[in-house]
C-alpha cells in the first residue's frame, strides 16, 4: 500500500529581473524577449509552492515538520532572492537567464540537498497569477 502524502509550503518573494542573452545583440534580445529585456529591469511578486512527498513518520505523523520546511525555505531561498535583483544580486543568475523555468530549477537544487533523500520534492513557481512553472515536470 502506498502511504505517501504530499505536503505543501507556500511562500512569496519580490524581485527584479530582466531576460537577456549576453551572446546576442540588442535586436535579437528585443525580438526574443520583448519588453522582458528592458535594460533597467522590471519585477514580479513570485509565489512559490514547495511540495514534499513522503510517508508520514510513525512517531510524529509528519512527512516533514512544516515549520522546519518553512525555516529551510526562508533561510536558503527567500533570504537569497527576496527584494533582490536576480541578475545583479545573486550568484545563481549572474550567468543564467532568470526565467521562471530556471528559477524553479535553481530553487529545486538548493532545497533538494537540504531534504532527506527519501522525500520527493517538486517546485511550483508563479511569476504572475497566470504564468507558472513546475519542476520536475511530471
Amino acid at each position, binding site marked *: 500500500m502506498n502511504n505517501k502524502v504530499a505536503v505543501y509550503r507556500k511562500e*512569496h518573494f*519580490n*524581485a*527584479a*529581473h530582466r531576460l537577456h542573452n549576453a551572446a546576442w545583440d540588442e535586436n535579437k534580445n528585443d525580438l526574443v524577449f520583448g*519588453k*522582458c529585456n*528592458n535594460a*533597467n*529591469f*522590471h*519585477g*514580479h*511578486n513570485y509565489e512559490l509552492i514547495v511540495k514534499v512527498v513522503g510517508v508520514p513518520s510513525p512517531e510524529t505523523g509528519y512527512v516533514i515538520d512544516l515549520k522546519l520546511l518553512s525555516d529551510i525555505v526562508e533561510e536558503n531561498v527567500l533570504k537569497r532572492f*527576496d*527584494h*533582490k*535583483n536576480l541578475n*545583479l*544580486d545573486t550568484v545563481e543568475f549572474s550567468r543564467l537567464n532568470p526565467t521562471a523555468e530556471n528559477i524553479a530549477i535553481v530553487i529545486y537544487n538548493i532545497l533538494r540537498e537540504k531534504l532527506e533523500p527519501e522525500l520527493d520534492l517538486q517546485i511550483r513557481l508563479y511569476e*504572475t*497569477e497566470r504564468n507558472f512553472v513546475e519542476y520536475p515536470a511530471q
Partner: protein
Amino acid sequence: MVYLTRLEHFNAAHKLYNPAWSKEKNEELFGVCANENWHGHNFDMYVTIKGEIDPDTGFLFDVKKLSKLIQEHVIKKLDHKNLNLDVDFLTGKMCSTEVLAIEIWKQLVSHLPMHVKLHCIKLYETPRIYVEYFGD
C-alpha cells in the same frame, strides 16, 4: 450614479530610496525595499469611474474606451519598466505605492469625458498591500 471598475496589471521594478539621505539612513528607513539594484512587483490596478448612465447605450462609459485610455496613458508607460528610471511622470518622485496611485490618477483624470468622473485608483503592490486614492 453608478460606479464602474476596470482591473489592469503591470509588472515593474522599483526601489524606495531618498537621494537626499545617506545610504545608511535609506536602509534604516526603507529596509530591503532600498536595495540599490531594485526589486519588483506584479501591480494590480483597479480604476473606478462614476457618473450617470447614458440612456441611449446603457453605459456609464464604453469600457473598451476606458481600457484603451488606461493602456495608452498608464500601462504602456509602467509595464515591464523601472519606475525610478524609465517613467517620465515619476521623475524626481518617490516610487512608493501611495505616490504611484496619485500620479496614475493625474495621468488619467484629464482624459475622461465631462460626464465621467474618476472615483478611485486602487493599487495593489502585493496581494496583501494596497492603497486607494480618491483625488482629495
